[in-house]
């Protein structure tokens, strides 16, 4: 029942908003804040209470080959915690930000549908159901990218929607091929039937899934839509898209499918390594040249996804610890950076780094939290980004792939360079910029402070006692590979 609540609460909130709160934005914001807080509370409860168990809920009491199962293991609840945490922070930020942009019940209703879609992707145990929830999240995402109603926002949303429909077609073909060869759609059943397929078919299924979900994760050759979509959306939505959407629809599903269902085939792990390195290097090189702050951040999202892919591709336990840890850290600091960009855009009316100035005096919270986030993303100790990158690089060396580790270090140095540029020209510049007189509200400051504190606190996850408590169950659920099927089917 707790699993069903993750779907019911945000979905009910979305419909309650359209029914009750159409008059003003305050009621809509309150309903969505309460719903997200409840959902976050439940996921904290699940993280604390599950301790490595796997919970299966059969919808409508139909057993697995017939009905749709909802499955939650440690990996799922860890991701749920991440999604709902960032969603709550984004809503708190929206409280002040959307009042400036035109507060509207439609925004909050779409936000709740986005959250429903992401929660659904995380807890479903059925391939086609996963596809449906993914489309729910994406449709809300397309609409939210175009929310501001300016020309370039429609352009970005159109590109995003076209890319989304291409990748959905590829995923649907993969689902059809899987169903025709295994006669089942439940992930656990597929995992059992997959080793019995012919070698050609196995490769085909893997390639189709890889192409489809890499498009969603914006891995390098499939990245073209991301910088437009993520830089055009309103700031809290950019934080949601860059922080968690590409990770739930991309990284989570890739890990779930390629580790727990397909059993981590070596060919595809090698592909992850190559694509990851490509993403790190090209993403960061494209980011260094940007002057638009949000566009720079969007390119960095591609680059940071590359680190997670390298961790996934190594196929070792330590690599997976790094990948999962980095996914959580990236959600925190990238959302924080997008909040900073939103606050600056609100206060100074610009996203161009060359036109920023005076930020330390006008918006001290923004300036200082951006410093924390910049240090985190460029991997400076003692912030969280340092530890997760370090783990990934050590894992690469241990797995006898030192080339990838070396390239990851180079990517990290370039990241540092580009964020030194951000701080030097943008946040610490002495230029006398003209403030527009819009004050950054307390709720926006609160969201930024909380995320900045978490950026520092999350490095504690690597301390032995805490690591065994939170990270290790997640990694063992992933590295259990197709043991997932036995747990879900209860054998």
């Amino acid at each position, binding site marked *: 029942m707790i699993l069903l609540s993750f779907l019911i609460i945000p979905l009910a909130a979305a419909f309650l908003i359209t029914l009750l709160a159409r008059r003003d934005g305050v009621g809509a914001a309150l309903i969505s804040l309460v719903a997200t807080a409840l959902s976050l509370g439940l996921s904290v409860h699940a993280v604390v209470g599950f301790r490595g168990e796997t919970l299966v809920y059969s919808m409508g009491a139909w057993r697995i080959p017939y009905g749709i199962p909802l499955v939650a293991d440690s990996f799922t609840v860890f991701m749920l915690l991440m999604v709902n945490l960032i969603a709550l922070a984004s809503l708190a930020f929206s409280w002040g930000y959307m009042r400036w942009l035109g507060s509207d019940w439609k925004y909050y209703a779409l936000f709740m549908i986005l959250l429903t879609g992401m929660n659904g992707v995380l807890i479903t145990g059925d391939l*086609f159901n996963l*596809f*449906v929830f993914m*489309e729910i999240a994406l*449709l809300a995402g*397309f*609409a939210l990218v*175009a929310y501001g*109603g*300016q*020309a*370039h926002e*429609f*352009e*970005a*949303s*159109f590109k995003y*929607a*076209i890319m*989304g*429909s*291409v990748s*959905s*077609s590829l995923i*649907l*073909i993969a*689902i*059809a091929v899987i*169903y*025709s060869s295994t006669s089942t*759609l439940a992930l656990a059943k597929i995992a059992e039937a997959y080793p019995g397929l012919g070698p050609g078919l196995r490769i085909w299924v893997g390639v189709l899934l890889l192409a489809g979900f890499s498009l969603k994760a914006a891995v390098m050759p499939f990245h073209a839509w991301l*910088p*437009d979509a993520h*830089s*055009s959306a309103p700031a809290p939505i950019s934080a949601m898209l860059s922080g968690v959407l590409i990770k739930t629809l991309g990284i989570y599903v890739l890990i779930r499918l390629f580790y727990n269902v397909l059993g981590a085939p070596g060919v595809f792990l090698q592909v992850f390594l190559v694509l990851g390195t490509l993403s790190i290097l090209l993403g960061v090189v494209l980011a260094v*040249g*940007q002057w*638009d702050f949000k*566009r720079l951040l969007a390119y960095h999202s591609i680059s940071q996804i590359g680190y997670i892919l390298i961790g996934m591709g190594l196929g070792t336990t330590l690599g997976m610890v790094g990948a999962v840890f980095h996914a959580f850290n990236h959600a925190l600091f990238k959302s924080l950076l997008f909040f900073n960009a939103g606050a600056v855009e609100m206060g100074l009316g610009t996203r161009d780094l060359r036109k920023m100035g005076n930020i330390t005096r006008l918006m001290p919270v923004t300036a200082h939290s951006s410093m924390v986030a910049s240090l985190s993303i460029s991997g400076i100790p003692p912030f969280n980004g340092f530890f997760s990158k370090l783990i990934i690089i050590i894992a690469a060396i241990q797995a006898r792939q030192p080339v990838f580790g070396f390239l990851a270090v180079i990517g990290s140095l370039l990241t540092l360079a580009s964020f030194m540029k951000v701080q030097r020209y943008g946040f610490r510049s002495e230029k006398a910029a003209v403030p527009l007189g819009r004050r950054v509200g307390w709720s926006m400051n609160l969201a930024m402070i909380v995320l900045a504190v978490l950026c520092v606190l999350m490095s504690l996850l690597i301390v032995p006692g805490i690591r065994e408590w939170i990270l290790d169950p997640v990694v063992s659920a992933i590295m259990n590979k197709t043991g997932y099927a036995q747990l879900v089917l209860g054998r």
Partner: protein
Amino acid sequence: MTLYLLCFALFLVGFYGLITKRDIVKIILASGIMGYAVNLMIVLFGYRRQGIYPILEKGKPVASMVDPLPQALVLTSIVIELGTTALLVALAVCLFRKYRTYDITKIRRLRG
């Protein structure tokens, strides 16, 4: 086999249109064609020769029925596609209002 090949050809037609056409409306149509090809393929996977409709009645052998599940999947995927297409058309209308053109090569404010 011929049916699958034709289905694949339809998919390629859609994909070709998607990457070569410059008119936004044609791009939307091309993405629709791609979707139809995929839906058609799913239904074909559930078909069997001389199959009958999958409703359980007395004296009707289950073995000769077509698989009903792909049909249910296709219904869902058609509805999703309808939603996406409606959104794309709405975006096309908004784009036309802003740029006064349907030519994708002239809608280029984002670059780099």
